[in-house]
């Protein structure tokens, strides 16, 4: 067990974070599963590497909660793909979760970065 974090390894998702991240990735526009994982990798500068084994079940759970909805559509380059979009319920959940996480992250940062 090492005490210093290895920067070469991608971060693991904390409990509950993947759902928020998926919601966030759909905020601007609907997207498909592959697009979502690309978006998260890009935005986190590859700190988050999305495992499809987690992504797909998470999408199903969000569908069950009616936070997102799915529809088959043609992509810009002419491929058929299943697109997910935020529902109104999902949007309110995202707003709530976002402010909660921002507070959490700032508080963590303040504590960890404290001088003494």
């Amino acid at each position, binding site marked *: 067990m090492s005490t210093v974090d290895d920067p070469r390894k991608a971060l693991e998702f904390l409990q509950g974070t993947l759902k928020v991240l998926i919601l966030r990735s759909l905020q601007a526009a609907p997207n*498909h*599963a*592959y697009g979502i994982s690309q978006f998260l990798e890009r935005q986190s500068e590859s700190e988050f590497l999305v*495992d*499809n*084994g987690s992504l*797909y*079940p998470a*999408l*199903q*759970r969000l*569908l*069950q*909660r*009616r936070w997102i909805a799915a529809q088959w559509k043609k*992509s810009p*380059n002419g*491929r*058929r*793909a*299943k697109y997910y979009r935020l529902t109104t319920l999902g949007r309110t959940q995202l707003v709530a979760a976002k402010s909660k996480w921002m507070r959490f992250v700032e508080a963590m940062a303040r504590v960890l970065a404290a001088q003494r």
Partner: protein
Amino acid sequence: MREWWSKIWGSLHLRSGLQNDLSDEMQAHLDMMAAENVERGMPPDEARVAARRQFGNLTRTEEKAREAWQFPRLETILQDIRYGLRGIRRSPSFSAVVILTLALGIGANTAIFSVVYSVLLRPLPYPNGERLVWLGESTAKYGGISITWINFQHWRNENDSFENMAGFANEDFTLTGRGDAVLTHAGLVTSSFFQLTGARPAMGRLFTDADDAPGAAPTVVVTADFWQRRLDGDSHVVGESLSLDGKSYEIIGVLPPGRRFFWNPVDFYLPIGRSAGAHLKRSEHGSMRALGLLKPGATLTQARINLDDIMQRLAVTDPGPENDHRAFAIYLTEATVGNVRPVLLILMSAVGLVLIIACANVASLLLVRSTARTREIAVRVAIGAGRARLARQLFTENLVVAGIGGGLGLLLASWCLRSLVLIGPRDIPRLSEATLDLPVLVFATAITIVVGLLAGVAPVFSAGKVDLTIALKEGSPTAGVGKRGQAFRNTLVIAEIAVTLILAFASSLLIRSLIAAQNSDPGFDAQHLLAIELQLPESRYKSDENVRQYYGQLAQSLRAELGVEDVGLVMCPPGGGDCGDYWYSILEKPPLTRDDVPLSLFNIVDDGYFRTANVRFVAGRAFNDTDRPGGSRVTIINEQLAHQLWPDPRLALGQHLKVGGTYMEGPTLEIVGVVANTSQMGLDAEQMPTFYYPFSQKPDSAMTVVVRTNGDPAQWMKAARRRVSALDRNVPIQSLRTAEDWLGATLERRRFATLLLGLFGALAMILAAVGIYGVLNYWVSARQKEIAIRLAIGASRSSILRWAGLHAARLAVIGIVLGAIGAWSASRWLESMVFGVTARSPLMMLVAGAAVIGIAALAAGLPLWRATHTDAVRNLHQG
């Protein structure tokens, strides 16, 4: 919630659709990745393979995504059940102990619950039974005395809380003209009675208001049982007549079988208004009580206030001795159950405690086994079983075991229940109706599941905490023996000892009470005493002189029988209960206010009774020939009554007892004697004040003849029957028993409760012994190596014994202290059932404590012996 709905929806419609959808979606995902690889310059084949690699495990992803929509699949549950069954077969002795323990706990609880349900909880078998109210009058001192006919009429017509009211009373009649004369029991009821109890005729009709009016033609409705037994089930019986006390009654209807309202079954019903309707005075009390059907929404309190208002109004318009009387009203359910409730609740709690012990035992056994299974669980975790999946499997296994235990328990319960109903006292209402019906089965299922889950909690939690690296390493038997597990097992032992002590204390109290009651002095010599209960038919013995003559001749005839030493007469023998009570006052004492006038039982005895029964005289004389009818009226009182009024019973002699008290009519009697108390209400009941009339001055047609014999009185039963029948074959013998049987019957309920509680106490002790043995044995096994080392470095066997014994003793002491505290606070509930000893008897606590310590020591003995006989050399070499 939302997830569940969509799961249900999904399982109904989407399952197959979703599957295709998912693979399509993932195929599209792969295509996109492959296309990007091609754009980067890979050849198409390689690009597809690379995409597959990048994506990860396709099948597993699809499975996991699908699982999000599914309930645990039936197949996995079945698989877990199969696995559980295999586990049972693999360790049969372990499983047998667990299953047997559960079966005992669940079986006993189910049996007692079905009694509780039948007696206390099941709705009454009448339409709107929950709104039926039992009504009587009350005075300042006594609630539930009879209602006078006139008051009843006022209540019935002037109240606005009841839909309907019905009066009822009991009376005995002698039936003649159909074989031998027999004593029969009648319910006297108003015509509304059958409406309230929801009875319909099986044949003919029931009473109308016309039948119930004074001067109406005499009619009778017979019960199905009487119709079968006495009227030979004759289908043309309607219209025939019955001769009751020499008067002819027309049979107008037959009731269907199965309906019972009165405690003691009645043979037929007569309209009460024919006779009681003749009462003109508001203070004329008979023995009538009433039933009322509350209007929907009306409360019992409102109804009481309503009836009290009527009584207050009547006190103005029709003043008299009834002025201060008020209404007494309780729900019929309560009136039916009466004082059985505390007994049953105590039994239910006791058997619940037994279940707790059983549960603790099973929990500790399962915990031990889960420790043995640590490696198996570790392997499962290592090859990918999630914690939830593992917990589900262990719970399913425990439920399988509990289910088998519960099934066996149900068999056990049905067997116990049959014996319970057989040995149960007859005076517990509806006990015989107790069966394993739906609510009882639901109860049994519920406790089985709860027990399965509770007992399984500890192993499931410890399984979740398995440390793979330790558990998988070869030969680490310490895995799972962690401090937490041991602390949990110690807690279970402490709890078992505490609960067992509570049960042991309760049973020892009851056993002590039963012994005290059985040995309590009944106030007379019950040995070699035969009691013949008779009822002379009024039609044949109309005058007092006829009655006196009959009993005189019978006594003479019985005295002539060889071996009969003496014969006496008593109206209500000891143990016969309350055959009548009335107000009284002493003329020589200052008058009391109306509310303070005391009640006393009264009885009638002849001049031979006290001598025959061997009742001790405290002061004065017995009745004798000088107490002639028409002469100066005399009475003998018992010690209890004398003690309430005079410091020395001798002071009572020559003073005068006014029957009826200061405010009611009644004769004045001179007190000529004081006798010892006899157990009128039963051996375990309080002594009641009693005064005795001489039979010569107040003859009664219903008397009990007591016969003192010079051997086992049962031998004279035949002779007694012969002599009674020889004198007049139309006189029915109501009962023929020895006085000892008669008295013993008063302890029926106490015996029943004591027997059951004693059984539960014994069961608790056995289970606790098994539990203590199991836990200590395990404690020793887990420490074999430590003990071996201690021995190897020079510890003596006695120091090992001290060390292990101290561990056991510590648990026992904590358990005993906690149990004593529990028993002490529980003793309050037992107060009503304790006799001849206080509920907080330190001696009984000591006895119970000693018994529990004895059992614990016995159970701890073998493990401790094992501890001291550890073979150090072999044990250390093995390691």
